[in-house]
């Protein structure tokens, strides 16, 4: 517990909040790496997932490939690319993109698949182009699940982006590696706590976004007794059926 308090104290120490390698700088680097990886991985995974979800084809290979990618240890991938590409951000970015693709892909195709087939069939039958079905029907209705995939990918990137410091002088991971090397455990723990706080804040942000993208018509709860009178009289057919005992 003392160590934990030391970690907090390290975070609160004003000396760590300015100058080169300060907390704001590392935080900014960490967020930038996360955002960059998210953009690259999304550009690859979301269109592929959308095509799979829309056509219903290629799901099996996608599941197998993303399952395989999930099984890759990121540290091993990072080391491999680090040896190949040398010191710098290239290796961690590639490793993190590989890490982020499976949840993004799964979110995208699950989101598109989740849309009721009858709704899509009706959209096609009234004359929507395939691109309009994707953009105006499947995307808005599948969005909450797609965002769910982005959310889980983002969390994994934030947590694992600490490894960027393994081969590059970037991100909150610097504090962890630095602390480990110099046996400065308050710094190491402080760095970890910062990563956790960042992850929680971003996750909270995504929780809000995920709520906001649920289309209003889907959120609208089914309300009873909303039938209003028609503008013209309707045919009356038979007597109303009254079931059960009337009280």
């Amino acid at each position, binding site marked *: 517990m003392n160590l934990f308090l030391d970690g907090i104290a390290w975070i609160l120490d004003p000396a760590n909040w300015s100058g080169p390698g300060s907390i704001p700088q590392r935080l900014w680097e960490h967020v930038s790496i996360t955002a960059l990886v998210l953009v690259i991985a999304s550009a690859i995974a979301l269109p592929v997932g959308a095509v799979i979800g829309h056509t219903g084809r290629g799901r099996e290979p996608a599941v197998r490939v993303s399952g395989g990618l999930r099984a890759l240890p990121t540290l091993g991938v990072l080391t491999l690319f680090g040896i190949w590409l040398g010191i710098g951000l290239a290796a961690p970015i590639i490793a993190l993109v590989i890490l982020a693709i499976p949840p993004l892909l799964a979110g995208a195709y699950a989101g598109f698949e989740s849309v*009721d087939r*009858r*709704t899509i*069939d*009706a*959209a*096609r*039958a*009234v*004359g*929507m*182009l395939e691109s*309009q079905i994707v953009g*105006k*029907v499947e995307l*808005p*209705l599948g969005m909450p699940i797609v965002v769910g995939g982005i959310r889980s990918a983002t969390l994994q990137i934030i947590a694992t982006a600490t490894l960027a410091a393994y081969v590059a002088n970037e991100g909150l991971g610097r504090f962890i590696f630095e602390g480990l090397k110099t046996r400065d455990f308050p710094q190491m723990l402080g760095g970890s706590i910062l990563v956790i706080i960042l992850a929680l804040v971003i996750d909270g942000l995504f929780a809000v976004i995920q709520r906001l993208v649920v*289309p*209003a*018509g*889907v959120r*609208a*709860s*089914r*309300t009873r007794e*909303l*039938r*209003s*009178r*028609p*503008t*013209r009289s*309707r*045919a009356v*057919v*038979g007597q*109303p*059926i009254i079931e059960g005992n009337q009280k």
Partner: protein
Amino acid sequence: MIEFRGVSKTFPDGTRAVVDVDIVIPPRKTTVFVGSSGSGKTTLLRMINRMVDPTSGQVLIDGTDVATREPVALRRGIGYVMQNSGLLPHRTVIDNVATVPLLRGARKRDAHAHALELLDTVGLDRSLADRYPSQLSGGQQQRVGVARGLAVDPNILLMDEPFGAVDPIVRAELQQELLRLQGELGKTVVFVTHDIDEAFLLGDQVVIMQHGGKISQAASPTEILANPADDFVAEFVGADRGKRALHITEVGGRRIVLDGDGRAAGVLAS
């Protein structure tokens, strides 16, 4: 006029949904395809707007083979009403009704004004315009579906078991509404159902399909009852039993009509 010429459909899994169908669907009348599941009636309906393409044969609208038409443009000119309404759950009632005019490039204001008129046409209060489909009853959703089908003022209205999922009272109401609408609008309605009573109620021409996608008989309800083409038709329409096998008995000088079970069905008006 819609014409099926030697139309067959075999699905990739080998199912023969429709076999060698020839039928003429007259304009401005209601033609009802009726049959049990697997009789190919929905497949025939969906061939008209190219949701399904025949394996062989031709479907013609006013003499033009639909295979020569671009599917999306063709569909935008034909009304389509399906079971469970098929409304877009994330769009309001008015946006759902205006879907196709907006796809065809109508101005939003015009499309919405027209959509409000269509709500009147199908007997829905304009106050429902800003609701979402999930906030409507099943019957109201079907009315919105019909309004959407009418939005581009199509000559042809395809209805695929549109009243299949609503309760019997609402279904009877919707059937009467459709009869009223058809009296006013005079569309070429192609209607699919498995309910022979619904077929006889709504159809000017009733097409009885048997399992395996063949037409057993296509005629007016009167003609079918008078001259069922074969035992299958006679059995299907139940001409020899229940409420269709009526006979007359005289009670106190008035002629009472009894059904097949001997229950009084009405008084014979003379």
